[in-house]
């Protein structure tokens, strides 16, 4: 009995993390071909055929990928710059503790705060108007609910950058990069050569799986794009939710199809990418 309980727990855990998502995926697939859902009327391929004529999903996917890549790319760059450029401050001052603060904030709260700060009726706009920098509301640049997704990217950077900075700092110390710095200096390397040839490749390779997962998390984020994004273009999560929550039940199979394509597509892309990063991990 003592040995059966962990197996049971393991089975339950496996069911939770693999079984349920796969069941959801299978239900979405069945729904997309008319075999599941409230108005299922037998097998049909018309939703799949219609997919080619609806560019919405593709635009949402490309837009989300762009936002995720820019947000994680910027966060990575900032975190690396901080860890490689301000080691002394990170070790002695309160900076390291301050990095935890944004991580304690729920994404929706941060998005709301940014909306208050950056919208045309927000605090910065009002300050700018009072200071005479802008003469009317429209003169203030669109920083949230903008077409380029500046607000969404900014919110994700504010959440992802401190997380990555803490991760890189932990890797820096665990990998003894200070000792490597001294060693490379005596081998003739400048500080820049140490960063380019030793620190950067080492930090990026050790953090690669986490960077990949952060990109996926940003790609699928819901709260931030819901508040700071536009109705068009939409990020994937908002696009899918909008379609799933429509009153017309006849549109559900198309929503199931979109969900299946997104989840399946991400799995197809991610599994080999994760394998690659793990194989080349240090």
């Amino acid at each position, binding site marked *: 009995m003592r040995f059966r309980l962990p197996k049971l727990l393991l089975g339950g855990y496996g069911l939770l993390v693999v079984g349920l998502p796969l069941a959801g995926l299978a239900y979405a697939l069945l729904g997309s071909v008319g075999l599941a859902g409230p108005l299922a009327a037998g097998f049909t391929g018309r939703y799949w055929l219609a997919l080619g004529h609806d560019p919405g999903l593709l635009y949402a996917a490309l837009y989300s990928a762009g936002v995720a890549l820019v947000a994680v790319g910027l966060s990575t760059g900032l975190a690396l710059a901080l860890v490689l450029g301000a080691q002394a401050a990170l070790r002695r001052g309160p900076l390291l503790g301050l990095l935890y603060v944004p991580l304690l904030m729920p994404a929706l709260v941060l998005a709301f705060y940014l909306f208050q700060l950056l919208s045309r009726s927000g605090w910065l706009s009002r300050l700018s108007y009072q200071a005479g920098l802008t003469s009317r509301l429209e003169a203030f640049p669109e920083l949230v609910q903008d077409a380029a997704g500046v607000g969404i990217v900014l919110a994700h950077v504010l959440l992802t950058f401190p997380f990555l900075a803490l991760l890189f700092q932990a890797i820096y110390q665990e*990998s*003894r990069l200070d*000792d*490597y710095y*001294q*060693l*490379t*200096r*005596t*081998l*003739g*390397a*400048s500080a820049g*050569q140490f960063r380019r*040839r*030793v620190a950067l*490749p*080492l930090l990026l*390779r050790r953090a690669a799986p986490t960077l990949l997962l952060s990109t996926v998390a940003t790609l699928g984020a819901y709260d931030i794009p819901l508040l700071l994004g536009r109705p068009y273009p939409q990020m994937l999560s908002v696009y899918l939710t909008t379609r799933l929550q429509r009153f017309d039940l006849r549109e559900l199979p198309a929503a199931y199809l979109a969900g299946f394509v997104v989840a399946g597509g991400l799995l197809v892309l991610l599994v080999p990418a994760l394998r690659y990063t793990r194989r080349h991990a*240090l």
Partner: protein
Amino acid sequence: MLLTVAYLSKRFGDQPVLRDITCGLAAGQVLAVLGRSGGGKTTLLKILAGLETPDTGTVLLDGQDLLPVPPNERQMVYLYQEPLLFPHLTVFENVAFGLRIRQVGKNEIVQRVSKMLEELDLGAHAQKAPHQLSGGQRQRVSFGRALIIRPRLLLLDEPFGNLDAQTRADMQQLFLRVTRQHQITSLFVTHDSREALTVGTHFAYLDRGLLTSFPSVREFIQDPRTSIAAELTFWESIQRTAFQPDYET
């Protein structure tokens, strides 16, 4: 003298770590510095490498004042107890590191690194990652990476301290062979008197920041602080006892 150190002192807070260190080292010599942990050995090496600054004193290399020279321009390699190989680079690229940052031509790099790897019996491991090597092999790669840039002075901080006894003895012999072959001048810090006697051509003892240089190996052995004479007496007494006819009973 290649290296001249005079009246070198260093404190960390109220704690004096080095006190008026004075010594010299001619080209091709190996100065073995024996001392206990916390005696100031690592600080001395780091000051020579340019990784720490002394409070007072002078360091001259070939008559040139070294203190204003940054570590990457001193051509003095500091070797840690651990090999600290770059984990993202192959054995070949680890050894080639010093040449790549000096922008040496590709053909010359291939030729010099291959020759160095053969000298260190590492030719078959050139494309391996550091984690695929044994402790002794890693330390040899670390040597190769240091020697390839033809350092003016090699600073070794208990480099074989983490190796087992047999590998340690092998590495000491390899060190002797390679330093003689390349005419490398070295300052070798160790807490093991046998290792000091094996690798050194000249000897010193460092304790609580004070360095004593010995004019000959005899004085080094006879100084009670090195404990070598006491150890010899111990082994001689063991030998005498072991070879007595009634010892077995």
